[in-house]
């Protein structure tokens, strides 16, 4: 039985380590958490194997055979030595794991040893994120997250309405966005690319669609992006937050595509929540646009997009993101308004 248990444990651990559990590892914090997971697998599998093995062998060796219907087992009431062992060994193992967990936690939350750290202010609202930068005294807001590779960044997270949770699975870290307080964590990205930003705390009807993108750029590209943001902000007016991140929208935006898929700057798809016959969307979170926009002028439509709280359709929640003014470029907004006015006549 012992041999069976050892072999099964080794196989179990091998399988546990071979499974590709995690998403892409995008931060130095992720390295330590993933290693910690491996240690947990190594410690856990033998316990499960122990229980299953004892049950299986007991069933094999001690099951009632014909003729034993009235037989009882030996009246063993306990064994103090054994009970001390199975109290003390797990306790020591658990204290060991807690110590290791404490060291890892301390490590992944520590501020970088040298140099100033970039702080990005993250604000959650139903159902979108806004990111505020302060680059050398120049402040600007975007609807997409951009960070330079290899530099520690601290997120100050807050919320305008209910509790959200700011999570980038590739970075492994998450924290709730709580109204009234500021919560924080820090990561050091170590891999270029685009990763989903996910809201991990149920925040209402649009929770499942509260998704944006985190872009990790090399230092030079990030600096160029900052320059463009600073110019855009200095130039005034709402423009595309993501124009420099690749995939910026051209002036002659395809309004119907915009309606059904959103843009890369953080404007979520209108059709995710709204029904519009012409675009073939069937969302039911918000009002049916074929009905509520009928006979409305362009000014009303523009206001409804930029400032959705101004007038809320009866029977529907106050759930529409308020960032379309920032996330849509001027031409995009114009095109969308024109399109909606056309098709809802």
């Amino acid at each position: 039985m012992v041999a069976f248990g050892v072999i099964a444990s080794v196989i179990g651990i091998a399988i546990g380590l071979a499974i590709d559990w995690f998403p892409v590892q995008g931060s130095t914090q992720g390295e330590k958490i993933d290693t910690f997971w491996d240690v947990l697998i190594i410690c856990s599998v033998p316990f499960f194997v122990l229980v299953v093995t004892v049950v299986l062998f007991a069933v094999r060796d001690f099951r009632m055979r014909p003729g034993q219907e009235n037989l009882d087992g030996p009246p063993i009431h306990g064994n103090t030595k054994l009970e001390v062992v199975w109290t003390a060994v797990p306790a020591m193992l658990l204290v060991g794991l807690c110590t290791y967990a404490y060291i890892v936690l301390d490590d992944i939350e520590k501020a970088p040893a040298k140099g100033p750290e970039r702080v990005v202010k993250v604000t959650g609202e139903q159902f979108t994120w806004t990111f505020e930068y302060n680059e050398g005294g120049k402040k600007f807001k975007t609807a997409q997250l951009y960070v330079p590779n290899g530099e520690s960044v601290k997120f100050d997270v807050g919320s305008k309405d209910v509790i959200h949770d700011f999570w980038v699975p590739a970075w492994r870290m998450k924290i709730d966005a709580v109204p009234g307080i500021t919560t924080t964590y820090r990561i050091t990205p170590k891999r270029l690319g685009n990763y989903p930003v996910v809201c991990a705390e149920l925040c209402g009807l649009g929770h499942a669609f509260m998704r944006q993108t985190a872009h990790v750029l090399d230092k030079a590209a990030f600096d160029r992006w900052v320059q463009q943001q600073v110019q855009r902000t200095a130039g005034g007016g709402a423009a595309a937050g993501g124009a420099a991140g690749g995939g910026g929208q051209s002036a002659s935006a395809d309004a119907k595509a915009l309606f059904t898929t959103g843009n890369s700057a953080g404007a979520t798809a209108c059709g995710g929540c709204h029904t519009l016959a012409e675009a073939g969307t069937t969302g039911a979170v918000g009002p049916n646009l074929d009905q509520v926009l009928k006979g409305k002028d362009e000014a009303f439509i523009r206001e409804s997009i930029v400032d959705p709280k101004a007038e809320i359709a009866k029977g529907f929640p106050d759930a529409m993101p308020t960032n379309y003014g920032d996330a849509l470029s001027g031409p995009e907004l114009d095109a969308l308004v024109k399109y909606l006015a056309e098709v809802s006549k």
Partner: protein
Amino acid sequence: MSVKLRNPGWYRAGLYVVLAAVLAFGLSWAVRAAYGHDTYAHFLDAESIVIIGMIALPLAFLVGIGCFDYWFYWASGRPTRPEDHSGHGAHSWRDYFRPNTDHKVIGIQYTVTSFFFLFVGGLMAMLMRAELAQPGRQFVDASTFNGLFSVHASVLIFLFIIPVFAGLANFVLPLMIGAPDMGSFASGWTAYAPLSTTAPDGQVFFTIGVQFAGASSIATALNFLVTIITMRAPGMSFFRMPLLAWANFSTSLLVVIATPFIAASQFFVLLDWALGFNFFNAAKGGDVLMYQHVFWFYSHPAVYIMMLPGFGIISEVLAVKARKPIFGYRMMAFSLLAIVVLGFTVWAHHMFVSGMQAWIRIPMMVTTAIIAVPTGIKIFSWLATLWRGVLHLDTPMLFALGFLTMFTLGGISGVMLAMVPLDIHVSDTYFIVAHIHYVLFGGSLFTIFAGVYYWFPKMTGRMYDERLGRIHFWSTLIFFNATFAPMHLIGVQGMPRRVADYADQFAGWNLAISLASFALGLSTLVFAYNMIASWRGGARASANPWRALTLEWQVSSPPPVFNFDQVPTVVGGPYEYGVPGAVHGIFGPAKPAEVKATPAGTHAEPVRE
């Protein structure tokens, strides 16, 4: 008719409910008029009517059906009708729909009602899995989906697991400790859960529903404590009590201490929601995290409320079916109490990513890990109980063994979640969903099935169908794992919970999970059929088909109205299997002959299907 309306019963209950509805409308209308608010354009728009009605209607129902008559008569100086227990026992199925003070009737009312909610909650899970079978939205919209998982959890926690344990214990416990009935008179009023008359939907329904469920939980728990402390049979010292009695004792301590906290948290929510008190409105100086602390201070101990009675059931089933004494009985009892104490020190492990003060995470991590030690003691003691026994591998035993392995897995993922660095990543993902279902399904529900099969002959006087029982076990075990095991993986990979839609990368696993969950749902139909058909037409059960030593098996199946024609005297431990001539209880010195009928190992062939 007017007599029917004046005497307690369904007619008067109906009348009082109507009166309460009128009162709810009138009160709301009058107060609004007095404050100069608009009166409602349509009465269905009126939230205040709904709230007052939610509180008034169930109370009116209970008053109408006669739960408080004794107190009203006493308060008004009229002659009370003394409780002569003439209403005890159930003679036809209709008797299960009347208030009753017989613990056995209440136990069955609780248990059957709870299983009804198991099917309701299970159907909701099927609907969710249907939606989640593919990415994108197919069957239900986001609003319905959010409602489904909220109600699924509330129904199964508050209306299934907690009350079904109370139901089984209500039936078995007094028999087990040699009491003629449960302790206090009021035990009857919890039997008709007011929740069963109002569909729980929406925040107010949940909030007020929790108040009623909480109040009935506390009443039941006090009742258990009183019964266990004061009504044990002569000779039944604490260390001669079956572990089920220990488990319910521990659980009741948890309920009495912890439940007021969830009542408080839900009152705060109700006052915030209905009257604008701003307890949790940060903009008006409220504190959002306070709700979570108060809520989890109850809801974590509640996890043990949903687990400890199951531990008790497993101890009973394993000892009897392995034909051996429970290994390390005293450590088993003390580890229950250790879990009660430690259970109050771990609540903030639900809040590692909530933004609370960072330092709290470390002590909460340590206590959470340490609570695995008494739980581990129980697992290892059960394993040692199996060793060298004579294992009767019938349905209750299979579910007990299934519990041992599946609950271990849930315990291991629990220790993983206790570790803060890992919890930061997997919090609010499907890893949590997997963990909670391994604990509550693989853990609690398996023990409930084990207990229902084990006591079915005692409760109904009939044997269940063993073949169907085995089919039920194997299909449940297989499809349970097929449903919930992959959730560990997609959780770590980054699929958040509580979403109606998800990234395409998770599509394959979700389809497999959905299909397995439908099969899991079908497997419970085997159980339902077995229970109903066997209750109606199963073979007659003998008094003690399992050759068990505990007192409930020493009376007829089903037991007589007052449980024991003679008060038993307890002379030994409850699990002395294999000790020659061992007896747990004797029925008075007048009939020593009965003593000889039950020693372990000498009884006649048990009655089997």
